[in-house]
Each structure stands twice: as structure tokens, then as C-alpha cells.
């Protein structure tokens, strides 16, 4: 890793230049309570001091809620082709646990087979992360995802009069050389960085006890009473999946134009919490109840990828806790698993 420092007075100019030269996406205040990652054309719109999480995770830039996978034309021959977006973009102001969310999707969509629609965008996305104090529902410290080791091109940490910059890629370094005035980070800067990180890690209020969760989860998995209690208020609305930075489930469907000559194969986000998710032709539903569905979602978030990737898919961003109408809290439920087993 290369470490640099950029002064606050030079920061505004650096970012403004990026905004004018690239398609620049960053957090913008939408209303009193919410922020969202959207296209920015003016530095004054950028608001990196958002207190809660952004309403939609940054995954939507790489994995939009609806996208065309392939298009085809039916005539004498059937012509099938891919549709790829070709624009260089910058994603700015994403925090550490969200960078880890993106890294998870990077790995997921490249495991075994490369998902080209995703990677056609990913290759052209420059990620500039920024540290910020955890929001009330953020428990990424417990999930080991509060710090991003990689998955970014640049990562900034606010040291009051300057930003401490971790340079994660050649691309990131190129941007600094071209658009910013920087200096190499020295002992004082590292001291400041350590101080920030210590304060940051001490600021997490919500904790989830994940020690032994891997085994305890299996122990409670068949306990119908336990899951009835946990899922009691669930509306099966799927909000938790829509706001999750690592949920990747999708439906594939065909969509024909009215002339019946041209068609698209599209994918759209799906949610494992919705009753139709496990429904197959012939009306059999493999996950008929909300308890079935909630515990399978938890399995996917806090167990499955410990096996497959060596670390869980949940990054602890806390969006699902904010979004849930029934106030279902994954961090508290993780703690309940341990409590249930320990009783």
C-alpha cells in the first residue's frame, strides 16, 4: 500500500476536477433523513457527512435493480448480443463496510464463472472510499468489516486539516498525480490515522456476538419456536434485501417489444423474503412460511459464505435494521442465537 496526504485546502479542488472530468457518483442529501448515491455535477451537492447509511447501497451502480442481460432479434436468423455499458465512473464517499460489500459482490460475481454484465461496469468503476463515524445501526466492527483492506482505488481518512490517503491501485495513484497536490505520509500522519481509527472503533454502539455463531446457528436452526418468535412481525416485504449491499438474488425474465421481433432477457432484483421466491411450477413452495424464509436469509448472511469464501456476506452496515418496518434487528437476532443455545 502507498500512503499519501492531501491538505484540506487542496481537497476541494481535487474533487471538483474529478466531478468535471468524470461521471461522478457520490452521497447526496435527498431529504431530512436520507442520503443516496447519485450523479453529482457540482461540488456543493456532495455531502460526505451523512449520519445514517445511504438509503440504497452502492451495489446499484454495478448491479442495477433492472438490467438487460442480452438482447435478441428474431427474423430469418435469431441474432443474440450482449449490452454493455462502457462509461468510466467514479464512486466517491463510500464507507469501509460498503467497500467490503462491493468486494463481496466482486468475488461473488467472479466465482467459478465471470458475470460479464457486472464486470463490464466494475472494470470501469473507480472507488474512492472515505472513513466516517458509524451510524446507530452499524455493527460492522462485530462482523470484522469496519475496515477495508482492499477493493478501493483510494481511501481517505479525515485528519482535521488533511486527509490521510491509502492508495489501493495504480489507477488511484494516477488520479492523484494528475489532479491533486499530495505529499508522502509521515510519522505524524500515521499517528493521526491511528488516533482516528481508535476513536472510530470505540464508537460502535451496536454489537453482535458472532463467536461460535457458525456452530450455534445450526443448533437453533431446527428450533421452530425460536424462529417463530424471531420472524413473528415479519411482513415478508423484502425491504431488507433491497437495501442490503451484499444481497444478489435476481429473477431472469424475457421482455418482448410490441413488434414481437426484438426482445430482451432482463434480470431484476429479487428477495428471498418474498413468498414467491421458492415457488416452482406445479405450485410447490420450498419456503412456504416467513420463518423458513427469514432463517434462510440469515443463513446466507451469516453462515453460507463463511464456508464458501472464508468470511460472512453480512458486512454489518445496518441498512436492513433501518429499513425493516417490523423492527427486525439482525444484530440482536445474532445475539439471541447465542442466548438461546446458552440457556
Amino acid at each position, binding site marked *: 500500500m502507498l500512503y499519501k496526504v492531501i491538505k484540506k485546502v487542496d481537497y476541494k479542488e481535487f474533487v471538483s476536477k474529478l466531478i468535471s472530468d468524470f461521471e461522478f457518483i457520490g452521497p447526496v442529501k435527498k431529504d431530512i433523513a436520507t442520503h443516496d448515491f447519485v450523479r453529482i455535477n457540482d461540488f456543493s451537492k456532495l455531502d460526505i457527512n451523512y449520519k445514517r447509511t445511504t438509503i440504497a447501497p452502492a451495489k446499484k451502480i454495478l448491479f442495477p435493480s433492472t438490467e438487460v442481460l442480452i438482447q435478441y432479434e428474431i427474423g430469418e436468423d435469431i441474432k443474440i448480443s450482449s449490452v454493455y455499458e462502457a462509461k468510466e465512473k467514479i464512486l466517491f464517499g463510500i464507507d469501509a463496510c460498503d467497500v467490503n460489500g462491493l468486494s463481496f459482490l466482486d468475488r461473488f460475481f467472479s466465482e467459478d*464463472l465471470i458475470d*460479464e454484465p457486472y464486470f463490464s461496469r466494475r472494470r470501469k468503476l473507480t472507488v474512492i472510499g472515505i472513513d466516517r463515524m458509524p451510524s446507530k445501526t452499524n455493527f460492522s466492527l462485530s462482523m470484522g468489516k469496519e475496515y477495508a483492506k482492499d477493493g478501493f482505488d483510494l481511501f481517505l481518512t479525515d485528519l482535521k486539516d488533511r486527509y490521510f490517503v491509502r492508495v489501493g491501485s495504480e489507477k488511484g495513484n494516477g488520479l492523484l498525480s494528475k489532479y491533486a497536490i499530495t505529499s508522502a505520509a509521515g510519522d505524524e500522519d500515521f499517528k493521526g490515522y491511528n488516533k482516528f481509527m481508535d476513536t472510530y472503533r470505540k464508537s460502535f454502539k451496536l454489537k453482535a456476538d458472532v463467536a461460535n455463531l457458525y456452530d450455534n446457528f445450526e443448533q437453533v436452526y431446527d428450533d421452530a419456536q425460536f424462529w417463530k418468535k424471531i420472524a413473528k412481525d415479519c411482513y415478508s416485504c423484502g425491504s431488507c434485501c433491497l437495501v442490503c449491499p451484499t444481497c444478489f438474488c435476481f429473477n431472469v*425474465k*424475457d421482455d418482448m417489444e410490441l413488434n414481437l421481433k426484438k426482445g430482451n*432477457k432482463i434480470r431484476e432484483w*429479487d428477495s428471498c423474503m418474498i413468498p414467491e*421466491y421458492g415457488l416452482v411450477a406445479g405450485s410447490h413452495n*420450498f419456503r412456504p412460511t416467513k420463518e423458513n424464509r427469514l432463517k434462510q436469509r440469515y*443463513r446466507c448472511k451469516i453462515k453460507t459464505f463463511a464456508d464458501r469464501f472464508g468470511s460472512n456476506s453480512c458486512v454489518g452496515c445496518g441498512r436492513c435494521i433501518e429499513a425493516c418496518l417490523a423492527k427486525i434487528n439482525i444484530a440482536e437476532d445474532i445475539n439471541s442465537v447465542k442466548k438461546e443455545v446458552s440457556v
Partner: protein
Amino acid sequence: MENNIYIPDLARITRIETVTPLEKIFDISFIEKEAQKKFNFMPGQFVELTVFGVGEAPFSITSNPNNKDKFQLCIRAVGSVSKATHVLKEGARVGIRGPFGKGTFPYKEAKGHNVLAIAGGLGLAPLMSFLTYVMDFRDQYKNLMIIYGAVNPTNILYKNEIAYWNSRDDVSVCVTVDNPDDKWTGEIGVCTKLIPRVDFKPDDTYTIVCGPPVMYKYVVVELEKKNFKEDKIFLSLERRMECGVGKCNHCHIGDKLACVDGPVFSLWDVRNLKEAI
């Protein structure tokens, strides 16, 4: 061709056979010779079939893997895509992705052992790929027994093949129906009732099972009464596979995916995956 895992290869339906009021068998060949040549599948694998303008759905391959110039699907008209296939005529063009699935029927491991095949309803179709393979190399397997349960005599699939098996003295076939008609002289009742009659040595027998979701629990109970071994019983599991390549996640069973890790799992795996059967 571009490197997009969602692009199907174009194929043509070369023959359609209506086998029951509900099911049709489709012979399919790829339009490009190259695509046909690289399409090598194993018994138990499936394809994603696109009916252009309607959608894509997973279907088990039912033909003999040794047949290299075409493959077969047996499709019951129940969902939107499967109903659309029943409207297609011979010569129609479809899209094919696959073959998919690492979990296949144990056609290699079962060599030198007895084979017991248990099918319920449309579950016979996926087993046909395995069974026709076994018949090609019949001398490499010991005893072969096929138990097949259908709802009624008109719904019996693969009547010619069943007659052929019956004509051979190295295959024993038991067909049973739930609702017999006046002409029916065979067994009556669910296929699990026939399992107690199997007299194969448990250690020396590979069992493969395919049928509707409700069937597995009961079949497994009967097989265990006979001490059949968990790692020698194989079940083909159905789930909603939207993508076939492990990305859409609809077919998750516990920590695994039916499309990538299955669709055929050993009973040992099934027991350790939650809510598999």
C-alpha cells in the same frame, strides 16, 4: 462468441412426440456444429431452455449421453415456459444454455454394483439419461431394478422403453399406478410399497431416486429400513433455477446450490443440508 454466461446457443427442435396428455418429448440439436460438438453432458445434468419472447426455465436432460448428435427433454406443461414449449412445432428455434450441475447420477461409481432406480411420475424422465447409459454398458453393472410409480395408466411415460426392459431378463421392472383403469393388471399404490421387495445387498447397491418433492421422505424411510447406505443413495432435487450458474441464488438448499452443487445429491449431503427434503 462473446463471453456472456447468459447468452444461449441456438438450437432447433427436430422432433416432437406427445407421450401423455401432459408430457411431450423434444429432440433438440444445436444449429452450430461447434455448439453440438462441445455439448457433452452427464446423466443428471440439466439445461436452461429459452423460448424466445416467453422466458427461460431449467429442464433435466433425458437422453443417453452417448448420443452426440442430439439430446432430449421431456416436458410437462405446467409453467409459463413449459406451456410455451407445447405450442412449438418441429423446426422451431430455441435457446439452450448448459449443461449445468456438478452433482450427477453415480454412473461411474455404480459400475460393478447393483443399481436400484426409483421414479415417481415425471421423475422417470431425468433417470432415463442414466438408465439408457447403464443399458449401453449393461455387462459392467450387476442387477438392475427399476421401480416406477405413475398416477394412472395413461400417464405412464416411456412405454416403449418399459416394454423393452420387460423383454430383457437382466432388468427387473415394477410399474405401479395410484388410480388403475379397467384394463390395468399391474401393481396398484405408491412406489414406496414396492421397496420392501428389493433383495439387493445394501453394501453393494447404488440407489437413484427422482420424483415429486413429497416422495423423497417416504422413499428414504423404506430404503433405510433395508440398511441401504447414505452415501450410496442419490436424490435428484428440484428447485427454482433461474440462472443455472450459481448467481441468482433461488435454488439454495442450506449452504449449497442445486444448480451448481446438484441437482443430484447423495442422501448424506441431503441429511446435512437443512430442509432439502
